[in-house]
């Protein structure tokens, strides 16, 4: 209740008070900075967060100076195992117009077992061509330090499958992996089409594993309504994703891999967060029968300028 009241208070501040908050931030000590950080989080941003997809990346980069907070959750109910909720908290920062940097913190909860922090991922995306083309490539490089209990399912590679989720969660196996992606993305008449080719390697000496993700989406309305409205069609984006593994260096192909088809829908609240949901259907016996993904993203404009009180 107290938390709720505080949130309401911050949302009701006018621009002068908000300016004072950021001025306070500039001169405050670490504890104050933490409070400032919380204030910035609840201060309404003006740009909407982008994520239309859960697995597939597009060529759309974070605007420079903006910080996006997002959660990406995946919940599954394997027949022979315990239901789980894998979660990734994402901090995405636009370093340059052509460079976006991201940190993920992964955790999971499994029914009848426990809740675990399962590791982190740090990734960077670079856009080599600085203008729009029919196909826009983006280069993606990630280092992840997670363990075998991770269930965030941010990508599907190699021979990943439902079998990995049946045994009791344990953190004994470390996965220090490098992941590379070639992201190709196009916009045409309001549609976005994105293809990702994924290569991942455990640096402990396991072979390269491969995967793919393809997605298409479109806003429900291409033109904006002149009126301020929360539930205008332009604020909704619908689409679908197809993703799965392609084996590894020694057994490349579809054998013993898992694949998913998932409709997606995103709701961009004007000057607020973006809510996304995606029910995914497994396409073969090695896949989860059903996965429900959902997420919230919130973008803060020009976060460094605000912290400096400018």
């Amino acid at each position, binding site marked *: 209740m107290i938390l709720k009241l505080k949130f309401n208070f911050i949302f009701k501040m006018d621009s002068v008070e908000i300016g004072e908050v950021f001025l306070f931030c500039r001169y405050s000590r*670490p504890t104050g900075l933490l409070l400032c950080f919380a204030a910035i989080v609840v201060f309404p941003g003006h740009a909407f967060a982008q994520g239309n997809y859960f697995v597939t990346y597009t060529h*759309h980069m974070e605007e420079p100076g903006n910080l996006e907070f997002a959660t990406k959750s995946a919940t599954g109910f394997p027949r022979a195992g315990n239901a789980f909720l894998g979660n990734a908290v994402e901090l995405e920062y636009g370093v340059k117009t052509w460079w976006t940097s991201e940190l993920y913190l992964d955790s999971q909860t499994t029914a009848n077992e426990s809740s675990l922090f399962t590791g982190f991922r740090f990734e960077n995306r670079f856009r080599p061509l*600085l203008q729009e083309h029919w196909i826009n490539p983006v280069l993606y490089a990630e280092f992840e330090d997670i363990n075998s209990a991770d269930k965030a399912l941010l990508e599907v590679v190699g021979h990943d499958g439902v079998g990995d989720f049946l045994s009791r969660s344990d953190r004994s196996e470390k996965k220090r992996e490098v992941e590379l992606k070639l992201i190709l993305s196009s*916009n045409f008449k309001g549609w976005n089409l994105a293809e990702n080719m994924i290569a991942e390697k455990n640096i402990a000496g396991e072979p390269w594993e491969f995967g793919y993700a393809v997605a298409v989406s479109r806003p429900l309305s291409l033109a904006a309504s*002149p009126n301020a409205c929360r539930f205008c069609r332009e604020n909704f984006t619908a689409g679908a994703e197809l993703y799965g593994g392609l084996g590894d260096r020694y057994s490349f192909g579809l054998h013993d891999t898992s694949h998913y088809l998932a409709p997606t829908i995103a709701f961009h609240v004007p000057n607020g967060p973006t809510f996304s949901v995606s029910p995914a259907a497994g396409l073969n016996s090695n896949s989860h029968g059903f996965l429900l993904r959902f997420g919230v993203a919130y973008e803060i404009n020009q976060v460094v300028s605000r912290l400096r009180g400018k």
Partner: protein
Amino acid sequence: MIRAKKTSLLMNLILILGASLLFASAGDGLWMTKVPEKDRARQNPFDSESNAVAAGAKLFRQNCSSCHGSEATGVKNRPNLHSERIRVATPGELEWLLKNGSMKNGMPSWSKLPEQQRWQIVAFLKSLQ
């Protein structure tokens, strides 16, 4: 005390590094020379729609005002859009800029917005003059 100083120093370093990476120079207008002729000559399909300016103003507030200000006068060293350059630019040039950005100068591409919404923003920009 020493710990507080260290934290303060670290925060300053992070801020300085972040700020130096963040802000590119104000628009230099060079982008206009890159616009292909066929794009330059394009007319705004929303010219005849009376609601286009209002819709564009809404989109501007949602997507552009953090850098260009709610009155489009620019924030810090970001360009003031009540300028001669914007006044003389053709609608096609402005739509091209929104689509492609001027990434070397810190202007991101807004290709994530549908073309129709970019034209609505252009209608709003032209109404500023």
